[in-house]
Protein backbone atom coordinates (compact mmCIF):
# COMPACT_ATOMS: atom_id res chain seq x y z
CA UNK A 1 0.00 0.00 0.00
CA UNK A 2 1.19 3.47 -0.84
CA UNK A 3 0.81 6.53 1.36
CA UNK A 4 1.54 10.24 1.35
CA UNK A 5 4.52 11.34 3.37
CA UNK A 6 5.03 15.02 4.15
CA UNK A 7 8.33 16.40 5.39
CA UNK A 8 7.57 19.88 6.73
CA UNK A 9 11.27 20.66 7.20
CA UNK A 10 11.74 20.67 3.42
CA UNK A 11 8.62 22.63 2.52
CA UNK A 12 9.06 26.31 1.74
CA UNK A 13 5.43 26.94 0.78
CA UNK A 14 6.14 27.34 -2.93
CA UNK A 15 2.63 25.94 -3.57
CA UNK A 16 3.63 24.09 -6.73
CA UNK A 17 1.75 21.04 -5.42
CA UNK A 18 -1.44 23.07 -5.10
CA UNK A 19 -1.05 24.51 -8.61
CA UNK A 20 -0.43 21.09 -10.11
CA UNK A 21 -3.48 19.67 -8.32
CA UNK A 22 -5.76 22.43 -9.62
CA UNK A 23 -4.36 22.01 -13.13
CA UNK A 24 -5.28 18.34 -13.25
CA UNK A 25 -8.29 17.90 -10.99
CA UNK A 26 -9.66 21.40 -11.15
CA UNK A 27 -11.86 21.67 -14.25
CA UNK A 28 -14.55 19.25 -13.05
CA UNK A 29 -15.70 21.66 -10.40
CA UNK A 30 -14.01 24.85 -11.38
CA UNK A 31 -17.30 26.73 -11.94
CA UNK A 32 -16.72 28.27 -8.59
CA UNK A 33 -14.21 31.05 -8.21
CA UNK A 34 -13.57 29.59 -4.80
CA UNK A 35 -12.09 26.42 -6.23
CA UNK A 36 -9.45 25.11 -3.90
CA UNK A 37 -6.99 22.32 -4.59
CA UNK A 38 -7.35 18.95 -2.89
CA UNK A 39 -3.96 19.44 -1.30
CA UNK A 40 -3.71 22.57 0.78
CA UNK A 41 -0.50 23.87 2.32
CA UNK A 42 -0.67 26.14 5.34
CA UNK A 43 1.87 28.05 7.34
CA UNK A 44 1.78 28.05 11.12
CA UNK A 45 4.18 29.17 13.86
CA UNK A 46 5.02 25.46 14.24
CA UNK A 47 5.94 25.15 10.58
CA UNK A 48 4.08 24.25 7.40
CA UNK A 49 1.41 21.59 7.32
CA UNK A 50 -0.80 20.05 4.68
CA UNK A 51 -4.47 19.13 4.53
CA UNK A 52 -4.90 16.14 2.25
CA UNK A 53 -6.83 12.89 2.28
CA UNK A 54 -4.67 10.04 3.60
CA UNK A 55 -6.93 7.32 2.20
CA UNK A 56 -7.24 5.65 5.59
CA UNK A 57 -7.65 1.91 5.79
CA UNK A 58 -10.90 2.18 7.74
CA UNK A 59 -12.13 5.57 6.62
CA UNK A 60 -14.49 7.16 9.15
CA UNK A 61 -15.76 9.57 6.47
CA UNK A 62 -17.23 6.69 4.47
CA UNK A 63 -19.16 5.49 7.52
CA UNK A 64 -20.41 8.99 8.22
CA UNK A 65 -21.52 9.82 4.68
CA UNK A 66 -25.31 9.92 4.77
CA UNK A 67 -25.48 10.66 1.06
CA UNK A 68 -23.44 7.53 0.28
CA UNK A 69 -21.19 9.78 -1.77
CA UNK A 70 -17.92 8.64 -0.22
CA UNK A 71 -17.01 5.02 -0.85
CA UNK A 72 -14.02 2.75 -0.58
CA UNK A 73 -12.97 2.02 -4.15
CA UNK A 74 -11.84 -1.37 -5.40
CA UNK A 75 -8.17 -0.43 -4.93
CA UNK A 76 -8.70 0.67 -1.33
CA UNK A 77 -8.74 4.36 -2.17
CA UNK A 78 -11.45 6.57 -0.71
CA UNK A 79 -13.39 7.76 -3.74
CA UNK A 80 -16.26 10.19 -4.05
CA UNK A 81 -19.29 10.56 -6.27
CA UNK A 82 -19.47 14.36 -6.12
CA UNK A 83 -23.00 14.34 -7.55
CA UNK A 84 -24.22 12.43 -4.52
CA UNK A 85 -22.78 14.86 -1.96
CA UNK A 86 -25.57 16.75 -0.22
CA UNK A 87 -23.29 18.99 1.82
CA UNK A 88 -24.13 17.90 5.37
CA UNK A 89 -20.41 17.94 6.25
CA UNK A 90 -20.65 14.81 8.40
CA UNK A 91 -17.36 13.72 6.78
CA UNK A 92 -15.69 16.90 7.96
CA UNK A 93 -16.98 16.16 11.45
CA UNK A 94 -15.18 12.81 11.63
CA UNK A 95 -12.03 13.26 9.54
CA UNK A 96 -9.14 13.27 12.02
CA UNK A 97 -6.88 14.87 9.40
CA UNK A 98 -9.17 17.78 8.61
CA UNK A 99 -8.82 16.75 4.98
CA UNK A 100 -12.32 17.45 3.71
CA UNK A 101 -12.74 20.63 1.71
CA UNK A 102 -16.01 22.14 2.80
CA UNK A 103 -17.10 24.43 -0.01
CA UNK A 104 -20.05 26.35 1.34
CA UNK A 105 -20.89 28.17 -1.88
CA UNK A 106 -21.43 24.84 -3.64
CA UNK A 107 -22.95 23.14 -0.58
CA UNK A 108 -20.59 20.24 -1.10
CA UNK A 109 -17.50 18.73 0.42
CA UNK A 110 -14.66 17.57 -1.80
CA UNK A 111 -11.59 15.45 -1.36
CA UNK A 112 -8.63 13.98 -3.16
CA UNK A 113 -9.67 10.82 -4.97
CA UNK A 114 -6.23 10.27 -6.48
CA UNK A 115 -7.65 10.54 -9.96
CA UNK A 116 -4.53 12.28 -11.25
CA UNK A 117 -1.55 10.00 -10.95
CA UNK A 118 -2.81 6.72 -9.69
CA UNK A 119 -0.60 4.70 -12.00
CA UNK A 120 2.67 6.07 -10.78
CA UNK A 121 2.85 9.22 -8.73
CA UNK A 122 0.18 11.79 -7.85
CA UNK A 123 0.61 15.08 -9.63
CA UNK A 124 1.22 17.07 -6.44
CA UNK A 125 4.14 14.80 -5.57
CA UNK A 126 5.56 15.11 -9.09
CA UNK A 127 5.36 18.88 -8.80
CA UNK A 128 7.24 19.02 -5.52
CA UNK A 129 10.93 19.68 -6.24
CA UNK A 130 11.77 20.57 -2.64
CA UNK A 131 11.71 16.99 -1.36
CA UNK A 132 8.80 17.67 0.97
CA UNK A 133 6.08 15.46 -0.48
CA UNK A 134 6.29 11.76 -1.27
CA UNK A 135 3.92 8.97 -2.23
CA UNK A 136 5.68 5.79 -1.35
CA UNK A 137 5.11 2.16 -0.72
CA UNK A 138 4.81 1.73 3.00
CA UNK A 139 7.14 -1.05 4.03
CA UNK A 140 5.95 -3.57 6.58
CA UNK A 141 8.10 -1.86 9.18
CA UNK A 142 6.73 1.55 8.35
CA UNK A 143 3.29 0.11 8.16
CA UNK A 144 3.55 -0.97 11.78
CA UNK A 145 4.55 2.53 12.82
CA UNK A 146 1.78 3.96 10.70
CA UNK A 147 -0.75 1.58 12.21
CA UNK A 148 0.41 2.48 15.70
CA UNK A 149 0.16 6.16 14.83
CA UNK A 150 -3.27 5.71 13.35
CA UNK A 151 -4.35 3.98 16.53
CA UNK A 152 -3.60 7.20 18.38
CA UNK A 153 -6.37 8.78 16.36
CA UNK A 154 -9.30 6.59 17.29
CA UNK A 155 -12.03 6.58 14.71
CA UNK A 156 -15.67 5.56 14.52
Amino acid at each position, binding site marked *: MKAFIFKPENCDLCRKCEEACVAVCGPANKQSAEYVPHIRVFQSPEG*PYIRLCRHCEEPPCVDACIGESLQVGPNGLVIQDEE*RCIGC*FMCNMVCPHGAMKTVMSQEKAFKCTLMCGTKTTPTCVLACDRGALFFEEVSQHNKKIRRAKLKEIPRK
Partner: protein
Amino acid sequence: MKAYGRQHLIIGNCIAAVSAAEVLRRQNQDDRITIMGDEEVPSYSRCLITYYLGDMVTRTHLLSHDEKWYRDRSIELHLSTKALSVDPKNHTVIAEQNGKKKKFSYDKLLVATGSSPIFLKSFPYDPDGVIGMRNYRDAATLKRWAQKGKKAIIIGAGFVGLKTAYGLAKQGVKAKVVELLPTVLGRMTDIEASRRIIERLTSHELIEIELNNSVVATRKQRQKYVVTYQDGREEDADFVVASVGVKPCTDFLDGTGAEIKWTIKVNERQETTVPDIYAAGDVCVSPHILSKEWIYNAIWPVAAAQGRVAAYNMSGDSSITYAGNLPMNSVDFFELWITAIGNVQADQAENGGIETIKFQSPRIYQKVLLKQGVPIAFMAVGNVDGAGLVRGAIVAGMPWKDFIKKPQAKVLPIVKEVI
Protein backbone atom coordinates in the same frame (compact mmCIF):
# COMPACT_ATOMS: atom_id res chain seq x y z
CA MET B 1 -19.78 -31.58 1.26
CA LYS B 2 -22.26 -29.03 2.42
CA ALA B 3 -24.00 -27.25 -0.40
CA TYR B 4 -24.31 -24.00 1.49
CA GLY B 5 -22.63 -22.21 4.32
CA ARG B 6 -24.66 -20.48 6.99
CA GLN B 7 -28.05 -18.90 6.38
CA HIS B 8 -27.90 -15.26 7.45
CA LEU B 9 -31.22 -13.49 7.82
CA ILE B 10 -31.33 -9.71 8.15
CA ILE B 11 -34.53 -7.98 9.23
CA GLY B 12 -34.38 -4.36 8.10
CA ASN B 13 -32.93 -2.85 4.98
CA CYS B 14 -31.23 0.44 5.88
CA ILE B 15 -27.54 1.16 6.43
CA ALA B 16 -26.90 -1.29 9.29
CA ALA B 17 -28.42 -4.06 7.15
CA VAL B 18 -26.63 -3.28 3.89
CA SER B 19 -23.25 -2.64 5.52
CA ALA B 20 -23.65 -5.98 7.32
CA ALA B 21 -24.63 -7.78 4.12
CA GLU B 22 -21.62 -6.38 2.32
CA VAL B 23 -19.24 -7.69 4.98
CA LEU B 24 -21.03 -11.05 5.21
CA ARG B 25 -20.57 -11.58 1.50
CA ARG B 26 -16.94 -10.49 1.60
CA GLN B 27 -16.25 -12.83 4.51
CA ASN B 28 -17.81 -15.86 2.94
CA GLN B 29 -18.90 -16.58 -0.64
CA ASP B 30 -20.91 -19.69 0.30
CA ASP B 31 -23.10 -18.22 3.02
CA ARG B 32 -26.67 -17.44 2.09
CA ILE B 33 -27.81 -13.92 2.85
CA THR B 34 -31.45 -12.91 2.99
CA ILE B 35 -32.67 -9.38 3.67
CA MET B 36 -36.27 -8.56 4.46
CA GLY B 37 -37.51 -4.98 4.50
CA ASP B 38 -41.02 -3.76 5.26
CA GLU B 39 -40.85 -1.04 2.63
CA GLU B 40 -41.68 -1.42 -1.04
CA VAL B 41 -38.38 0.08 -2.22
CA PRO B 42 -34.83 -1.29 -1.87
CA SER B 43 -32.34 0.28 0.52
CA TYR B 44 -31.80 4.03 0.52
CA SER B 45 -30.42 6.61 2.90
CA ARG B 46 -33.15 7.57 5.34
CA CYS B 47 -31.18 10.69 6.17
CA LEU B 48 -31.90 11.95 2.66
CA ILE B 49 -35.70 11.83 2.78
CA THR B 50 -36.01 15.45 3.88
CA TYR B 51 -33.68 16.41 1.02
CA TYR B 52 -35.96 14.43 -1.29
CA LEU B 53 -38.96 16.26 0.14
CA GLY B 54 -37.30 19.59 -0.67
CA ASP B 55 -36.33 18.45 -4.18
CA MET B 56 -32.67 18.73 -3.25
CA VAL B 57 -32.11 15.15 -4.38
CA THR B 58 -33.96 13.22 -7.06
CA ARG B 59 -35.75 9.91 -6.60
CA THR B 60 -32.98 8.06 -8.46
CA HIS B 61 -30.38 9.69 -6.25
CA LEU B 62 -32.32 8.77 -3.10
CA LEU B 63 -32.86 5.12 -4.03
CA SER B 64 -29.16 4.33 -4.04
CA HIS B 65 -29.32 0.52 -3.91
CA ASP B 66 -31.11 -0.89 -6.93
CA GLU B 67 -31.93 -4.57 -7.29
CA LYS B 68 -28.69 -5.10 -9.17
CA TRP B 69 -26.80 -4.19 -6.03
CA TYR B 70 -28.38 -7.15 -4.25
CA ARG B 71 -27.97 -9.46 -7.24
CA ASP B 72 -24.27 -8.64 -7.59
CA ARG B 73 -23.74 -9.77 -4.03
CA SER B 74 -26.10 -12.77 -4.28
CA ILE B 75 -28.37 -11.36 -1.62
CA GLU B 76 -31.93 -12.61 -1.56
CA LEU B 77 -34.17 -9.57 -1.13
CA HIS B 78 -37.74 -9.61 0.18
CA LEU B 79 -39.48 -6.23 -0.02
CA SER B 80 -42.80 -5.31 1.64
CA THR B 81 -42.07 -8.04 4.15
CA LYS B 82 -42.72 -7.33 7.78
CA ALA B 83 -41.39 -9.58 10.54
CA LEU B 84 -44.12 -10.63 12.97
CA SER B 85 -42.39 -12.98 15.37
CA VAL B 86 -39.14 -14.80 16.02
CA ASP B 87 -38.80 -18.34 17.32
CA PRO B 88 -35.24 -18.58 18.67
CA LYS B 89 -35.57 -22.25 19.55
CA ASN B 90 -36.34 -23.37 15.99
CA HIS B 91 -34.39 -20.51 14.44
CA THR B 92 -37.32 -19.24 12.39
CA VAL B 93 -38.97 -15.90 11.69
CA ILE B 94 -42.60 -15.48 10.70
CA ALA B 95 -43.19 -12.54 8.42
CA GLU B 96 -46.08 -11.06 6.52
CA GLN B 97 -45.62 -10.72 2.78
CA ASN B 98 -48.46 -9.46 0.55
CA GLY B 99 -51.01 -10.33 3.21
CA LYS B 100 -49.70 -13.88 3.56
CA LYS B 101 -47.61 -15.35 6.32
CA LYS B 102 -44.24 -16.70 5.34
CA LYS B 103 -41.65 -18.60 7.34
CA PHE B 104 -37.93 -17.83 7.11
CA SER B 105 -35.25 -19.86 8.80
CA TYR B 106 -31.86 -18.67 9.94
CA ASP B 107 -28.59 -19.76 11.43
CA LYS B 108 -27.70 -16.19 12.37
CA LEU B 109 -30.25 -13.42 12.62
CA LEU B 110 -29.52 -9.69 12.48
CA VAL B 111 -32.17 -7.30 13.74
CA ALA B 112 -31.69 -3.96 12.01
CA THR B 113 -35.24 -2.65 12.04
CA GLY B 114 -34.38 0.87 13.16
CA SER B 115 -36.95 3.05 14.81
CA SER B 116 -40.30 4.67 14.10
CA PRO B 117 -41.75 8.07 15.05
CA ILE B 118 -43.54 8.50 18.36
CA PHE B 119 -47.13 9.72 18.35
CA LEU B 120 -48.87 10.88 21.51
CA LYS B 121 -52.52 11.07 22.56
CA SER B 122 -52.43 14.77 21.85
CA PHE B 123 -51.45 14.09 18.25
CA PRO B 124 -52.38 10.52 17.28
CA TYR B 125 -51.33 9.03 13.96
CA ASP B 126 -53.78 9.73 11.14
CA PRO B 127 -52.92 8.47 7.65
CA ASP B 128 -54.85 11.40 6.18
CA GLY B 129 -53.11 14.22 7.99
CA VAL B 130 -50.90 13.40 10.97
CA ILE B 131 -47.79 11.43 10.07
CA GLY B 132 -44.14 11.17 11.03
CA MET B 133 -41.14 11.63 8.78
CA ARG B 134 -39.10 8.51 8.82
CA ASN B 135 -39.13 6.66 5.53
CA TYR B 136 -39.54 6.98 1.80
CA ARG B 137 -43.30 6.59 1.98
CA ASP B 138 -43.59 9.43 4.51
CA ALA B 139 -41.51 11.68 2.28
CA ALA B 140 -43.56 10.77 -0.79
CA THR B 141 -46.78 11.40 1.12
CA LEU B 142 -45.62 14.79 2.35
CA LYS B 143 -44.50 15.65 -1.15
CA ARG B 144 -47.97 14.84 -2.44
CA TRP B 145 -49.68 16.78 0.36
CA ALA B 146 -47.38 19.72 -0.33
CA GLN B 147 -48.87 20.01 -3.82
CA LYS B 148 -52.28 21.03 -2.51
CA GLY B 149 -51.69 21.96 1.11
CA LYS B 150 -50.52 25.43 1.98
CA LYS B 151 -49.66 25.05 5.61
CA ALA B 152 -48.13 22.44 7.89
CA ILE B 153 -47.61 22.28 11.62
CA ILE B 154 -44.52 20.39 12.72
CA ILE B 155 -44.44 19.20 16.30
CA GLY B 156 -40.87 19.12 17.59
CA ALA B 157 -37.89 21.19 16.46
CA GLY B 158 -35.38 18.39 16.54
CA PHE B 159 -33.20 17.35 13.67
CA VAL B 160 -36.00 15.77 11.65
CA GLY B 161 -38.53 18.49 12.49
CA LEU B 162 -36.36 21.32 11.27
CA LYS B 163 -35.19 19.47 8.18
CA THR B 164 -38.80 18.66 7.34
CA ALA B 165 -39.76 22.32 7.75
CA TYR B 166 -36.83 23.22 5.51
CA GLY B 167 -37.97 20.71 2.89
CA LEU B 168 -41.59 21.82 3.04
CA ALA B 169 -40.63 25.49 2.72
CA LYS B 170 -38.69 24.61 -0.40
CA GLN B 171 -41.95 23.11 -1.71
CA GLY B 172 -43.74 26.38 -1.03
CA VAL B 173 -45.59 25.19 2.06
CA LYS B 174 -45.79 27.38 5.13
CA ALA B 175 -44.16 25.43 7.93
CA LYS B 176 -44.88 26.21 11.55
CA VAL B 177 -42.63 24.43 14.04
CA VAL B 178 -43.64 24.07 17.69
CA GLU B 179 -41.05 23.06 20.27
CA LEU B 180 -41.41 22.33 23.96
CA LEU B 181 -37.79 23.19 24.81
CA PRO B 182 -36.25 26.68 24.84
CA THR B 183 -33.81 25.65 22.08
CA VAL B 184 -33.98 23.93 18.72
CA LEU B 185 -32.12 20.77 17.67
CA GLY B 186 -32.33 19.25 21.16
CA ARG B 187 -28.93 18.37 22.53
CA MET B 188 -27.00 19.68 19.55
CA THR B 189 -27.15 23.34 20.51
CA ASP B 190 -27.06 25.93 23.26
CA ILE B 191 -29.08 29.17 23.49
CA GLU B 192 -26.72 31.16 21.26
CA ALA B 193 -26.40 28.49 18.56
CA SER B 194 -30.14 27.97 18.65
CA ARG B 195 -30.73 31.71 18.22
CA ARG B 196 -28.52 31.77 15.14
CA ILE B 197 -30.22 28.75 13.59
CA ILE B 198 -33.70 30.18 14.23
CA GLU B 199 -32.63 33.50 12.77
CA ARG B 200 -31.41 31.82 9.60
CA LEU B 201 -34.39 29.50 9.21
CA THR B 202 -37.00 32.16 9.87
CA SER B 203 -35.33 34.50 7.39
CA HIS B 204 -37.34 32.36 4.98
CA GLU B 205 -40.83 33.81 4.89
CA LEU B 206 -42.48 30.37 5.01
CA ILE B 207 -40.83 29.12 8.20
CA GLU B 208 -42.01 30.03 11.67
CA ILE B 209 -40.61 28.55 14.90
CA GLU B 210 -42.26 28.80 18.29
CA LEU B 211 -40.34 27.63 21.35
CA ASN B 212 -41.52 26.80 24.88
CA ASN B 213 -44.87 25.59 23.61
CA SER B 214 -46.47 22.23 23.04
CA VAL B 215 -49.51 20.67 21.46
CA VAL B 216 -52.14 19.32 23.86
CA ALA B 217 -54.79 18.23 21.35
CA THR B 218 -55.33 17.71 17.63
CA ARG B 219 -58.68 17.40 15.90
CA LYS B 220 -59.90 17.19 12.35
CA GLN B 221 -62.25 19.94 11.27
CA ARG B 222 -63.60 19.81 7.75
CA GLN B 223 -60.52 19.32 5.62
CA LYS B 224 -58.18 20.93 8.18
CA TYR B 225 -56.34 19.78 11.26
CA VAL B 226 -56.66 22.04 14.29
CA VAL B 227 -54.09 21.82 17.06
CA THR B 228 -54.56 23.25 20.54
CA TYR B 229 -51.47 24.59 22.28
CA GLN B 230 -50.78 24.37 26.00
CA ASP B 231 -51.66 28.05 26.38
CA GLY B 232 -55.10 27.42 24.90
CA ARG B 233 -54.52 29.00 21.49
CA GLU B 234 -55.62 27.08 18.44
CA GLU B 235 -54.06 26.95 15.01
CA ASP B 236 -55.10 25.08 11.90
CA ALA B 237 -53.09 23.53 9.11
CA ASP B 238 -53.58 21.26 6.13
CA PHE B 239 -51.48 18.57 7.76
CA VAL B 240 -49.36 17.85 10.82
CA VAL B 241 -45.94 16.20 11.08
CA ALA B 242 -44.94 14.59 14.38
CA SER B 243 -41.22 14.68 15.12
CA VAL B 244 -40.93 14.50 18.86
CA GLY B 245 -38.71 11.44 18.87
CA VAL B 246 -38.43 7.85 17.80
CA LYS B 247 -39.01 4.43 19.28
CA PRO B 248 -36.96 1.35 18.34
CA CYS B 249 -39.00 -1.20 16.34
CA THR B 250 -38.78 -4.28 18.55
CA ASP B 251 -42.39 -5.53 18.85
CA PHE B 252 -41.77 -8.69 16.84
CA LEU B 253 -39.12 -9.80 19.36
CA ASP B 254 -41.69 -10.19 22.15
CA GLY B 255 -41.46 -13.66 23.61
CA THR B 256 -37.94 -14.35 22.41
CA GLY B 257 -36.48 -13.57 25.80
CA ALA B 258 -34.22 -10.88 24.37
CA GLU B 259 -33.53 -8.16 26.92
CA ILE B 260 -35.23 -5.04 25.68
CA LYS B 261 -35.48 -1.91 27.76
CA TRP B 262 -36.97 0.38 25.14
CA THR B 263 -33.85 -0.45 23.09
CA ILE B 264 -32.33 -3.86 22.54
CA LYS B 265 -29.46 -4.69 24.83
CA VAL B 266 -26.35 -5.78 22.93
CA ASN B 267 -22.70 -6.31 23.76
CA GLU B 268 -19.69 -4.97 21.89
CA ARG B 269 -20.04 -7.86 19.39
CA GLN B 270 -23.63 -6.77 18.68
CA GLU B 271 -24.97 -9.96 20.25
CA THR B 272 -28.32 -9.70 21.97
CA THR B 273 -29.06 -11.74 25.07
CA VAL B 274 -30.45 -14.51 22.82
CA PRO B 275 -27.96 -16.83 21.07
CA ASP B 276 -27.60 -16.33 17.30
CA ILE B 277 -29.60 -13.08 17.35
CA TYR B 278 -27.64 -9.91 16.71
CA ALA B 279 -28.81 -6.30 16.53
CA ALA B 280 -27.37 -3.16 14.96
CA GLY B 281 -28.37 0.42 14.28
CA ASP B 282 -31.15 2.57 15.74
CA VAL B 283 -32.82 -0.46 17.27
CA CYS B 284 -30.13 -1.04 19.91
CA VAL B 285 -27.76 0.70 22.29
CA SER B 286 -24.13 1.54 21.60
CA PRO B 287 -21.20 2.42 23.85
CA HIS B 288 -20.07 5.99 24.43
CA ILE B 289 -16.48 5.85 23.24
CA LEU B 290 -15.12 7.72 26.28
CA SER B 291 -17.31 6.73 29.22
CA LYS B 292 -18.09 3.26 27.79
CA GLU B 293 -21.64 3.77 29.04
CA TRP B 294 -24.32 2.20 26.88
CA ILE B 295 -26.31 5.02 25.33
CA TYR B 296 -28.91 5.39 22.61
CA ASN B 297 -26.94 7.07 19.84
CA ALA B 298 -29.17 6.71 16.79
CA ILE B 299 -26.92 8.17 14.12
CA TRP B 300 -25.89 6.93 10.69
CA PRO B 301 -22.15 6.34 11.40
CA VAL B 302 -22.98 4.18 14.43
CA ALA B 303 -25.45 2.08 12.43
CA ALA B 304 -22.94 1.59 9.61
CA ALA B 305 -20.20 0.48 11.99
CA GLN B 306 -22.46 -1.71 14.13
CA GLY B 307 -23.78 -3.49 11.04
CA ARG B 308 -20.24 -4.29 10.00
CA VAL B 309 -19.20 -5.49 13.46
CA ALA B 310 -22.30 -7.70 13.67
CA ALA B 311 -21.46 -9.21 10.29
CA TYR B 312 -17.90 -10.12 11.27
CA ASN B 313 -19.19 -11.84 14.38
CA MET B 314 -22.01 -13.57 12.51
CA SER B 315 -19.42 -15.03 10.14
CA GLY B 316 -17.41 -16.33 13.04
CA ASP B 317 -14.76 -13.64 13.52
CA SER B 318 -15.26 -12.72 17.16
CA SER B 319 -12.10 -10.59 17.28
CA ILE B 320 -13.98 -7.60 15.85
CA THR B 321 -15.72 -5.47 18.44
CA TYR B 322 -17.32 -2.04 18.39
CA ALA B 323 -15.48 0.63 20.36
CA GLY B 324 -18.39 3.07 20.27
CA ASN B 325 -18.84 6.65 19.25
CA LEU B 326 -19.87 10.06 20.50
CA PRO B 327 -23.26 11.63 20.06
CA MET B 328 -22.72 13.96 17.11
CA ASN B 329 -24.37 15.45 14.08
CA SER B 330 -23.89 17.91 11.29
CA VAL B 331 -26.44 19.74 9.15
CA ASP B 332 -27.03 22.92 7.21
CA PHE B 333 -30.03 25.22 6.82
CA PHE B 334 -29.84 27.81 4.06
CA GLU B 335 -26.05 27.58 4.07
CA LEU B 336 -25.69 27.90 7.82
CA TRP B 337 -23.78 24.84 8.98
CA ILE B 338 -23.96 23.37 12.45
CA THR B 339 -21.72 20.60 13.73
CA ALA B 340 -22.00 19.33 17.29
CA ILE B 341 -19.81 16.63 18.83
CA GLY B 342 -20.36 15.27 22.35
CA ASN B 343 -22.63 16.75 24.99
CA VAL B 344 -22.44 20.44 24.11
CA GLN B 345 -24.86 21.28 26.92
CA ALA B 346 -22.59 19.88 29.62
CA ASP B 347 -21.66 23.42 30.68
CA GLN B 348 -25.26 24.04 31.69
CA ALA B 349 -25.17 21.27 34.28
CA GLU B 350 -25.15 22.32 37.91
CA ASN B 351 -22.28 20.19 39.15
CA GLY B 352 -19.85 22.23 37.05
CA GLY B 353 -16.20 21.43 36.65
CA ILE B 354 -16.53 22.33 33.00
CA GLU B 355 -14.46 25.08 31.43
CA THR B 356 -15.92 26.70 28.33
CA ILE B 357 -13.99 28.41 25.55
CA LYS B 358 -16.03 30.36 23.04
CA PHE B 359 -15.39 32.24 19.86
CA GLN B 360 -18.12 34.50 18.57
CA SER B 361 -18.25 36.73 15.54
CA PRO B 362 -21.25 37.85 13.48
CA ARG B 363 -20.78 34.86 11.16
CA ILE B 364 -19.16 32.23 13.37
CA TYR B 365 -19.89 30.71 16.76
CA GLN B 366 -17.65 27.99 18.13
CA LYS B 367 -17.52 26.49 21.57
CA VAL B 368 -15.38 23.84 23.16
CA LEU B 369 -16.02 22.33 26.60
CA LEU B 370 -13.06 21.20 28.66
CA LYS B 371 -13.05 18.88 31.63
CA GLN B 372 -9.77 19.03 33.51
CA GLY B 373 -8.25 20.67 30.47
CA VAL B 374 -9.33 17.91 28.06
CA PRO B 375 -11.97 18.67 25.41
CA ILE B 376 -15.19 16.68 25.84
CA ALA B 377 -17.50 18.46 23.42
CA PHE B 378 -17.31 20.82 20.47
CA MET B 379 -19.87 22.84 18.63
CA ALA B 380 -19.45 24.99 15.55
CA VAL B 381 -21.99 27.20 13.80
CA GLY B 382 -21.30 29.13 10.60
CA ASN B 383 -17.81 27.73 10.10
CA VAL B 384 -17.43 24.02 10.77
CA ASP B 385 -14.22 23.44 8.80
CA GLY B 386 -11.86 21.00 10.48
CA ALA B 387 -14.34 19.90 13.17
CA GLY B 388 -12.96 16.38 12.88
CA LEU B 389 -9.62 17.58 14.21
CA VAL B 390 -11.30 18.47 17.50
CA ARG B 391 -13.20 15.19 17.47
CA GLY B 392 -9.84 13.44 17.17
CA ALA B 393 -8.61 15.30 20.25
CA ILE B 394 -11.79 14.51 22.19
CA VAL B 395 -11.57 10.82 21.40
CA ALA B 396 -7.84 10.65 22.10
CA GLY B 397 -8.23 12.59 25.37
CA MET B 398 -5.64 15.11 24.23
CA PRO B 399 -5.37 18.18 26.50
CA TRP B 400 -6.57 21.35 24.78
CA LYS B 401 -3.26 23.12 25.43
CA ASP B 402 -1.47 20.41 23.46
CA PHE B 403 -4.09 20.33 20.72
CA ILE B 404 -3.82 24.05 19.98
CA LYS B 405 -0.07 23.65 19.46
CA LYS B 406 -0.70 21.31 16.56
CA PRO B 407 -0.24 23.19 13.31
CA GLN B 408 -3.45 21.71 11.86
CA ALA B 409 -5.49 23.10 14.73
CA LYS B 410 -4.88 26.61 13.40
CA VAL B 411 -7.65 26.18 10.82
CA LEU B 412 -10.21 26.49 13.60
CA PRO B 413 -11.27 30.05 14.45
CA ILE B 414 -11.57 29.03 18.10
CA VAL B 415 -7.85 28.18 18.11
CA LYS B 416 -6.68 30.99 15.85
CA GLU B 417 -8.67 33.81 17.40
CA VAL B 418 -8.89 32.91 21.07
CA ILE B 419 -5.68 33.40 23.00
